[in-house]
């Protein structure tokens, strides 16, 4: 565990649901967004987190980043646990962990020039730099992500979505963090631009030895960029495996269904998507058994009552009663 730059242990995130209150003084309901997520990330590696909308993948990385309160669980950074209430810990966290966001245009302040945007983190993380040094560092970084000096004084609305995402990346990495959290960074972009951003992320990762936590709903992209993939459903981990192994041989019924539905850009291959019947459980009242059991095509009796453990075998782990049987 020593060479892991980030370790997450049994992380839970819950939100208050005030709409469910009957009276102003009754206790608000709890929405369980993330339920017991555990993973390790080594320096320079990428973990991809996939799942459908509402599976808690964004809540997970926002909680790791400290943007959403953690309900319980531990986050370790470089071998030391982070206390989210401690200012010094938070400064250390932010210095080594930055984030890029889903909506590239909304993630940039429309009233700042792109140079100001990229220089801003240095005010907080590199207090040794003066304004001129910050300016030149920001310009270097913008140059690195593919902007010319004539563009430095422009405002975000003058750029396309792909360019804005590159500016967002420049802002995130200008203070040289060790970990980059990517919250669906390409889902708002066109296919041709997606590839630009993905390639830039990979290049920068190789140059700086960044560790990436890459959240997306598109398995193809996650497969492309990740060393390891974590599949989430209803806030829980379903399956965790090296990317190639997961695609080649998915063990969890949910992963299998997800993979079967991915469209393949080849008219000769007809995909046969598995149809998931049944409804999603309410995140306010999670079932006692497996989170996926209400829609699982392979459910057995135990699934309804006993929550399966996240069992690790070799380099992959599955949360499924059936897999336990197969593997053991």
């Amino acid at each position, binding site marked *: 565990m020593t060479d892991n730059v980030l370790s997450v242990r049994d992380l839970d995130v819950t939100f208050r649901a005030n709409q469910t209150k009957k009276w102003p003084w009754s206790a608000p309901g709890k929405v369980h967004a993330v339920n017991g997520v555990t993973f390790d990330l080594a320096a320079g590696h990428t973990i991809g987190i996939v799942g459908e909308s509402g599976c808690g993948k964004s809540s997970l990385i*926002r909680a790791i*980043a*400290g*943007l959403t309160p953690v309900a319980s669980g531990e986050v370790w950074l470089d071998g030391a646990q982070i206390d989210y209430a401690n200012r010094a810990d*938070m*400064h250390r966290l*932010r210095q080594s962990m*930055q*984030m890029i*966001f*889903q*909506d590239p245009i*909304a*993630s*940039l*302040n*429309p*009233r*700042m*020039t792109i140079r100001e945007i990229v220089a*801003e*983190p240095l*005010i*907080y*993380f590199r207090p040794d730099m003066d304004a001129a040094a910050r300016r030149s560092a920001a310009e270097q970084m913008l140059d690195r992500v593919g902007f*010319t000096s*004539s563009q430095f*004084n*422009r*405002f975000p609305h*003058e750029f396309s979505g792909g360019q804005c995402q590159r500016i*967002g990346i420049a*802002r995130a990495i200008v203070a040289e963090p060790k970990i980059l959290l990517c919250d669906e960074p390409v889902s708002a972009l066109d296919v041709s631009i997606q590839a630009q951003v993905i390639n830039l992320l990979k290049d920068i990762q190789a140059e700086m030895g960044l560790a990436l936590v890459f959240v997306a709903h598109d398995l193809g992209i996650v497969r492309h960029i990740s060393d390891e993939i974590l599949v989430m459903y209803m806030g829980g981990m379903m399956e965790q495996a090296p990317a190639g192994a997961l695609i080649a041989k998915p063990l969890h019924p949910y992963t299998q269904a997800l993979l079967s539905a991915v469209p393949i850009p080849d008219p000769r291959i007809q995909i046969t998507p598995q149809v998931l019947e049944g409804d999603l459980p309410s995140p306010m009242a999670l079932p006692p058994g497996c989170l996926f059991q209400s829609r699982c095509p392979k459910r057995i009796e135990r699934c309804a009552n006993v929550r399966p453990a996240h069992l690790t075998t070799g380099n992959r782990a599955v949360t499924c009663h059936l897999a336990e049987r197969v593997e053991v």
Partner: protein
Amino acid sequence: MTSASRRLKSREFADAAAEEMITSRSFWADARGRFLRNRMAVFSVFMLLCLVVFALFGHTIAVWNYEEIDWAVLGQVKTEGGPSLENGHWFGVDELGRDLYARVVQGTRTSLMVGFVAGPLSVMLGALIGAMAGYFGGRFDQTVMGLYTIWISIPYIIFFVVWQAFFGRSLTQMIIVIIIVNWTAGLLIVRGQVMMLKNREFVDAARMLGMSDMAIIFKHLMPNVLWVVVIYTSLVIPEVIMAESLVSFLGVGIQEPNTSWGALISEGARTMTFGTLWQLAFPAMFFVIAQVSLFYIGDGLRDALDPKER
């Protein structure tokens, strides 16, 4: 030509074409351009500037002081006190034989001062409270909204009467009481804007830098709601001038020997039946010019700043 050099050439071609299409201007430069294209708004700014110049320097060309009583016309104001170039009473005299031109200069100064000091300050106060309520939400927001609801249900004349009973009737007191009455101006709209903006991801990005909440409000949110504040201020200034005129008209505002548009209009209206129509007409004219100009300026600002127009 090798294919490499050809590609280089085409890239340059593309860059040049792109350069030509994009002109970089800030939001405010853009807005200024749009505002200047609105002829009526620009003309209104000119009119307002004339009023300001009149208020500041009008007294230098006055023949009479505003406190001086012209004994020559006193007693026969109706026949002798009308506007005349010969005796220097360009706007005529008031009921007490004082020069109306000097009085109007003085009244313009007071009214514009009240409008341009109390208006922006009250909007700023409201915007600050509104931004904080919108950003923090929860208890603080509930408290502010509760106070707001109570506040707007109290008739504001009461504040003037009560305040002046305690602190007197000076210009400063007038401005203070208008700010206190009007702190709700701009509150709701800024609160709404901030509530919308705080969910944008650039606020999250700022939080990732460890910026404090107040720093985020002032550095990232306020510049983005400034356009709302500017539009709102342009609407509140004429309202404040109107409110001041109203309370002065009712006699709880500015006190003699100082005067304002409202006070002058009030006097003029009282003596109108005696046939001294000029005593009403001149202050009313200035008042109307100011209100109409401010209206068109506000209109122009809204068109120039509202991003929906883009």
